[in-house]
């Protein structure tokens, strides 16, 4: 059963990755000059307080011991406590995760809805002007600094045209809908709350587009590349020799076969979007994991940064697993051949 083998392999990798990530971030966070205990206590705290904090947090222990305690904590799902918010990092991340996920999904939907057709056009009209335009667009997308694009959109749609809001998930004074999934759009839909539905939608447009624009390029290029590969295959020649018109060949033969390997890329794009949201969230003051981590970095709050890295790496490996399994399901060559 290929499924089982893949799951086991991925889980083993997961363990390795989490371990490795924790080591890396641990090492990095201990590179910082300065005293974390003093950072927590504040500049004006007395030396006794600093000492007390150091002892409580075990910061006076040798590194390997500290690391071991951290790993033990990880096994219990304890990611440490944020220096900045003084809450468990896991709690912080749980609170901010849905916002980031909602944004990432919105961006992914946009990127695929626009990216796939563009990629198809680009492949079918290879080297003609359509291809050049799409490729320029794709490359521009990938080359755009997300934080800058976000700012431009804010200037235009919020500053000049006053059409869309410039920050946050909801306007001041409007309470979020009852939390079912944490996704404002879905929760509003489920609870029939029209006001928050409309406002959530208005607030997600700009950041969603900003984040999605970059990945539009990634998707278009992947589809183009996969389509070009399929269009060069023998079965396409057979189909044409049998009289199938060009677009028939494209949509009924080449595209389905091109999507199969592309699933991997698209699935992983979601992972990229999750942490790529970092800068977009900052610009739009979107209360997600991204802004959280940037604030943490600027405050040198390393438990929080470490926690974020561990969580996202974890999510990435799980995503890989899901994508691999999906691949098994949709490619008949693998399932049928057993």
């Amino acid at each position, binding site marked *: 059963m290929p499924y089982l083998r893949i799951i086991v392999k991925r889980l083993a990798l997961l363990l390795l990755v989490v371990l490795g990530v924790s080591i890396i971030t641990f090492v990095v966070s201990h590179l910082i000059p300065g005293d974390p205990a003093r950072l927590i206590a504040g500049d004006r705290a007395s030396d006794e307080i600093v000492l007390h904090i150091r002892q409580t947090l075990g910061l006076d222990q040798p590194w390997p011991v500290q690391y071991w305690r951290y790993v033990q904590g990880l096994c219990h799902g304890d990611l440490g406590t944020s220096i900045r918010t003084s809450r468990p990092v896991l709690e912080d991340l749980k609170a901010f995760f849905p916002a980031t996920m909602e944004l990432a999904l919105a961006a992914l939907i946009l990127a695929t809805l626009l990216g796939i057709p563009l990629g198809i056009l680009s492949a079918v009209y290879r080297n003609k002007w359509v291809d050049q335009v799409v490729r320029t667009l794709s490359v521009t997308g990938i080359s755009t600094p997300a934080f800058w694009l976000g700012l431009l959109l804010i200037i235009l749609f919020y500053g000049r045209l006053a059409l869309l809001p410039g920050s946050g998930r909801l306007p001041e004074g409007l309470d979020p809908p009852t939390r079912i999934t944490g996704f404002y759009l879905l929760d509003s839909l489920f609870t029939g709350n029209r006001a928050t539905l409309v406002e959530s939608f208005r607030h997600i447009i700009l950041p969603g587009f900003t984040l999605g624009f970059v990945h539009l390029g990634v998707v278009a290029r992947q589809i183009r590349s996969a389509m070009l590969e399929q269009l060069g*295959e*023998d*079965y396409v*020649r*057979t*189909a*044409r*020799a*049998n*009289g*199938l*018109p060009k677009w028939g060949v494209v949509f*009924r*033969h080449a595209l*389905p*076969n091109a999507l*199969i390997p592309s699933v991997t890329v698209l699935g992983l794009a979601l992972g990229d979007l999750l942490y790529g949201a970092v800068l977009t969230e900052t610009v739009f003051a979107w209360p997600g994991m991204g802004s959280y981590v940037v604030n943490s970095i600027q405050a040198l709050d390393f438990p929080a940064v470490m926690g974020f890295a561990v969580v996202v790496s974890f999510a990435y490996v799980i995503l890989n697993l899901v994508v691999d399994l999906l691949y098994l399901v949709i*490619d*008949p*060559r693998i399932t*049928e*051949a057993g």
Partner: protein
Amino acid sequence: MASLLSIEDLTLEFPIYQGSVRALNGVTLRVEPREIVGIVGESGSGKSVTAMMVMRLLVEGSYRVRGSVTLLGRDVLRAPEAAMLELRGSQVAMIFQEPMTALNPTRRVGGQMVEVIRLHRRLSRARARAEAVALLRDMHVADPERILGNYPFELSGGMRQRVLLALAFSCQPKLLIADEPTTALDVTVQRQVLLLMREKAREKNAAILFITHDMAVVSQFCDRVYVMYAGGVVEDGPTAEVMANPRHPYTRGLLAALPDRTGSRGQLEAIRGSVPDLTRLPEGCAFAARCPLAREACRQRPPSVVTDPAGRHRAACWAVQEEVQTP
């Protein structure tokens, strides 16, 4: 009776870095209804390109072409794409060398056959499927229902070629073009497929244009043969005659290299030298560098075609010309 296919002085080039590759250099050939015509030559002789041009399957814009190709009365080089679409798969069908990769690997055979059948004939899905079953049965496939439900990778090479043949004949084509259809198959299967092709073509009154590098197959299978070298036709005529009495040195060389001819103890003779660079074809005869009979004229001017008195057996060679002129 007009020819099914008539190619006149076809010259085709692919532009590349620093020049162009002249794949075809003045090719002239004909296929009459119900004939089996072979094109034989080695890799690079232009035989596959010729076949692809009959149905205009090459990528638009990747080549420059001169001459004419007339298929079933239509000017292929100038016809609109819609006209070509109508021809392909219905009145003219083509099968290729690699049955292993010729079918879409992620769709079942039945679906692919039904799609092609419904493209050219107005049948419901169920009727088209029944038709597919009948076609497979006609190709001597046992248990065609099961085959329709299979994916291509579940079938052997020979079976896949039968499927492709069934598809080729599905719309009663007048011409079947087969580009090395048996080269990638086992020897035993090769013979089966060839016999099947001939049987069905005769049954359905179709002509076959058969492309191969294998002279032995040609001698058993084709009524007429064209021998191609470096993009040009060097000799053509009824197979029996060309085999018995090859006139062009290249043809002689090919035949001399066949194991059967040299007897059990003779040595296999290879033609010395190698194929010319198609980006820099010589001014004279393309074969001159390798030809045992080459003379001054061969290097200077491309040879003109010499026809035998019966008018069916032709060769493009200065040596042959001289032979004819000096009684």
